[in-house]
């Protein structure tokens, strides 16, 4: 049972999150959306025949959509404006995670739709099941995007975009080196020593194993619950970091 004060606090948070999301939608205007779409089609078309690269273009789109409003507000030095609005810092963090989740879902939609539309057009000779058409492929997409969001946002809220980007870059590089090493150790002799991106096949192997062991519904539920827990922990870190930051 919730007390009146808790109910009021929840209503206040919900109102704040909604106002922040509306702000993001207004800041991210149709021109930005058109630029993103054009870039996605252009780059996606170049790499449509390689699943791995096309996957990472989709992840890149998710990253772009997650970061666009923080980038705009960082360039405008709008931190102080945001901080002076009548919302708690935790509300700002929640809103950013909600918009990141929406961004990842939208990017997944573009990745899957792009795979169905672009790839047959540009690479008609390809055979075999496509990653974007399988459950484990889609789950892999969400595991990777959620993982990157869970790393990036606490850094962003604690350090602000400039320093957070550098820190995230270092973490990303470590992931590339580390996952390449793991891939080589696991017997993938062709895996490069330093990949441009951590091989998604590693994540996919894990997802595949889980689906094979538990079955698709249970594995999906477990992965979704795991991602929710990861985001909750990441969000908690982000709130703690943001509350300590002077704006």
């Amino acid at each position, binding site marked *: 049972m919730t007390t009146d004060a808790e109910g009021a606090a929840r209503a*206040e948070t919900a*109102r*704040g999150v*909604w*106002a922040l999301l*509306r*702000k993001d939608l*207004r*800041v991210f*205007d149709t021109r930005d959306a058109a630029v993103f779409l054009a870039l996605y089609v252009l780059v996606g078309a170049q790499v449509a025949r390689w699943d791995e690269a096309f996957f990472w273009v989709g992840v890149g789109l998710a990253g772009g959509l997650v970061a666009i409003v923080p980038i*705009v*507000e960082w360039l*405008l*030095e*709008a931190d*102080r*404006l945001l*901080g*002076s*609005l*009548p*919302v*708690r810092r935790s509300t700002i963090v929640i809103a950013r995670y909600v918009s990141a989740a929406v961004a990842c879902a939208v990017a997944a939609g573009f990745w899957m739709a792009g795979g169905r539309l672009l790839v047959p057009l540009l690479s008609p000779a390809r055979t075999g099941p496509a990653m974007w058409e399988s459950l484990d492929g889609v789950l892999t997409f969400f595991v990777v995007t959620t993982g990157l969001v869970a790393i990036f946002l606490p850094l962003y809220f604690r350090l602000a975009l400039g320093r957070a980007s550098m820190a995230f870059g270092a973490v990303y590089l470590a992931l590339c080196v580390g996952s390449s090493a793991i891939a080589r150790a696991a017997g993938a002799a062709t895996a490069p020593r330093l990949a441009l991106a951590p091989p998604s096949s590693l994540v996919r192997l894990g997802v595949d194993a889980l689906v094979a062991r538990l079955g698709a519904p249970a594995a999906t539920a477990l992965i979704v619950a795991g991602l929710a827990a990861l985001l909750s922990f990441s969000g908690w870190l982000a709130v703690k970091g943001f*509350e*300590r930051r*002077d*704006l």
Partner: protein
Amino acid sequence: MEPILELRHVTKAYEGFTLEDVSFALPRGYIMGLIGPNGAGKTTIVKSILNLVRIDGGEIRVAGLDHRRDEVDVRSRIGFVHENPRFHDALTVERAAAVIAPFYPTWDRAEFGRLAAEFGLPRRQRVRTLSRGQRTRFALAVALAHRAELLLLDEPSSGLDPVFRRELLDRLSGVIEGGHTSVLFSTHITADLDRIADYVTFVRQGRLVFSAAKDDVRERWVLVKGGTELLTDEVRARLAGIVVHEFGFTALTGDLAGLRALLAGAQLVVEPATLEDVLFYTGRRAHDDLRLYDDRR
């Protein structure tokens, strides 16, 4: 009546700067000028009130509410006008206001429209194309449209042309007339405060020098001029910021009666001090005379 703003023993330490034990209160319906040289801690105080920076100690209350525990309620009562107001530049004035409006339950759309028209804000123009003065007008319109009880202005008049500066000051005088709104106005342009402030709070190097009604400040501090032979240690102890020139000295004192008693019979010229005089003379180190001539010639 409860003050609209009260700071009690507020401290905040940065590397190389500490805001130390700052306490003052602003009664409702008045304008307080927060003055001090650059780097004195004015912006830190304003940011602390908004909880943009976390204070290390002390307490800040706005309309009786704790600025941290009740931060949403506190911020919804505050209108903030920054030295260089930042908004989402790609949006039009109207849309930028529409972005901010949902955050304030008390937002009055009609009032914003009326203020925008009164301030001559082109509502369909993009924020990035507004001049500095127009941005300040926009920030003020936003602050007033949500019926803020406390306006926090951080150096809003620096860099503005004299015509708009005067207009802004007149506007602030008008804002407090109903008694609903109070203003804390941080500036280093003391002429602005001579015109509109009811109270003056002076900070220097992170410390509070005084916080008092402007009239009390004017009554308390006076400029004294006399010959340098009068500058004994006892006299110096009652003076601030001694300036020595060829024909004598000029200094500020807050203890004219004590000085007169000490210098009975001596020729001493006394003049009223402006806020700028107070800022200038008290802003200098004690026992460190400013010599405006070379006495070795």
